[in-house]
């Protein structure tokens, strides 16, 4: 039997009586890509922030099971939690500026995660950083350049490299192509897809763009007013949506 790498039970979070997300339960299996869709205010960002440790939910359970080791995410000490986030999780922000240090070179940015988990060999850090720059299609001659000299698409690819270099077990992506020009979206999306396939990544991706979900996600959930209204295999949900709201989404009637 395959054990889910992440199991969420009855997760709720509200802000001053405004519902963020309510009674969310779901499972994610190793190597799966889960897409979360919904219009803005539907709770998808609240959910991903709770799961990745950026927000403290009010109620519910989040259990990670990594290499047969169970972690009760909401019931461990702050230091254990931060360590877990550092070593086992990764978060790709919509705006790469939120996930990078703009006054630190590209190599330093990619290397930071390695150093934070204990790498202390400059040469090794540098060669790994070079390798990853290669993987995300950034010329390795740019390794000592500051991110401010990079284009939007390059910044996003740099952020992806920074996040993936330590081989995290679960990767969260919040609208990873949302802030990019349409012309560069395709390239970044393509890169994510090939990395997912090559490295067999486990990913939760939030997007309002159904094309992104169609391309990347194995499974998807649809959120509305803080709750999950429909879930299933992406192909199934997209081809044959059951809920009226999902039907509207799929037929692009709703502008999400």
């Amino acid at each position, binding site marked *: 039997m395959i054990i889910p790498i992440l199991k969420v039970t009855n997760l709720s979070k509200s802000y001053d009586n405004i519902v963020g997300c309510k009674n969310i339960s779901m499972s994610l299996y190793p190597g799966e890509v889960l897409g979360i869709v919904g219009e803005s205010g539907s709770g998808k960002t609240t959910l991903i922030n709770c799961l990745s440790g950026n927000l403290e939910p009010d109620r519910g359970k989040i259990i990670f099971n990594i290499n047969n080791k169970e972690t009760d995410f909401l019931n461990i000490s702050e230091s254990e939690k931060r360590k877990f986030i550092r070593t086992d999780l990764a978060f790709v922000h919509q705006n790469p500026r939120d996930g990078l240090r703009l006054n630190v070179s590209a190599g*330093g940015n990619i290397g930071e995660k390695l150093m934070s988990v204990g790498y202390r060999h400059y*040469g090794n850090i540098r060669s790994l950083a070079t390798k990853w720059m290669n993987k995300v299609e950034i010329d390795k001659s740019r390794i000592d350049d500051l991110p401010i000299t990079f284009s939007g698409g390059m910044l996003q690819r740099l952020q992806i490299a920074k996040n993936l270099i330590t081989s995290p077990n679960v990767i969260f992506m919040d609208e990873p192509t949302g802030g990019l020009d349409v012309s560069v979206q395709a390239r970044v999306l393509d890169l994510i897809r090939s990395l997912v396939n090559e490295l067999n990544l486990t990913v939760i991706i939030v997007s309002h763009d159904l094309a992104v979900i169609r391309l990347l996600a194995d499974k998807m959930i649809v959120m509305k007013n803080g709750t999950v209204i429909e879930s299933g295999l992406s192909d199934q949900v997209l081809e044959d949506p059951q809920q009226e709201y999902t039907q509207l989404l799929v037929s692009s009637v709703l502008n999400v």
Partner: protein
Amino acid sequence: MRKTNNVIKIKDFKVDKGLPFDQEYNFAYLDENTKKMIRRAIIKALCIPGYQVPFASREMPMPYGWGTGGVQVTASCLTKRDTLKIIDQGADDTTNAVSIRNFFKKTSNIKTTEITEKATLIQTRHRIPETPLKKKQIFVYQVPIPEPLAFLEPKVSETIKMHSLSEYGAMHVKLYEDISKNGHIETAYAYPVKTNDRYIMDPSPIPKFDNPKMNNSPAIQLFGAGREQRIYAIPPYTKVKSLDFEDYPFDPFKAEHACDICGSKNTYLDEIIVDDAGNKSFICSDTDFCNKRKNK
């Protein structure tokens, strides 16, 4: 305007009574309750090597930034049997060292010395003496900025979290950047260390040449930062490691010269410009050590 009364009528001005001002103060200036509060902070600091203990720093009669933290720590540790040595930049005779020594002479009538071995308590600014410190000596550093992460993150509320969770990755990023830019770690003084394998600590602005002297020292090392209200410590025989990379090990370099007075080749040197042509001379920054060698 109406006359106002004062909150607490302070005893009439002492100057009017012709009393010398300094006899007005307690031994070593600070009152005993304040010393007790500071000693508590020191003990806590010794129990958690490298951890910065907040303390209610007092306003001292010398400016913040001129050694008020060190002076408060010294004043709290000082007993009448102590022999005190004060150095600034390694020397006993620089203006600030003279000024602080006079302050303690005036307020405590304590024995002072310039000879490192004879001192039971040494207060320093920016140097560790060349003569190795020994058991039962207390060595007090003056610290301007106690937070080694301050230059990465100015907010104390954030750096406190980084320390408590050992989130020190960013510190190595700084060293990484130095090497990738210059092939060197650029920090030449106040070079960060890890104490007892736990806390990253600022050793005060001593040259990195002095860093190895902190490791496994038999003396008690205390650090006082008055303006920033922090005390931290290294208990005797504690591991103190300068941060580095395996392939770029810590390098405590110094000027490649010998002292022009005593001929010492392995001491930290001051560079002095001797004439208008810009000719230079190098002499030991530790004046006591240099004198002893010269007179041998």
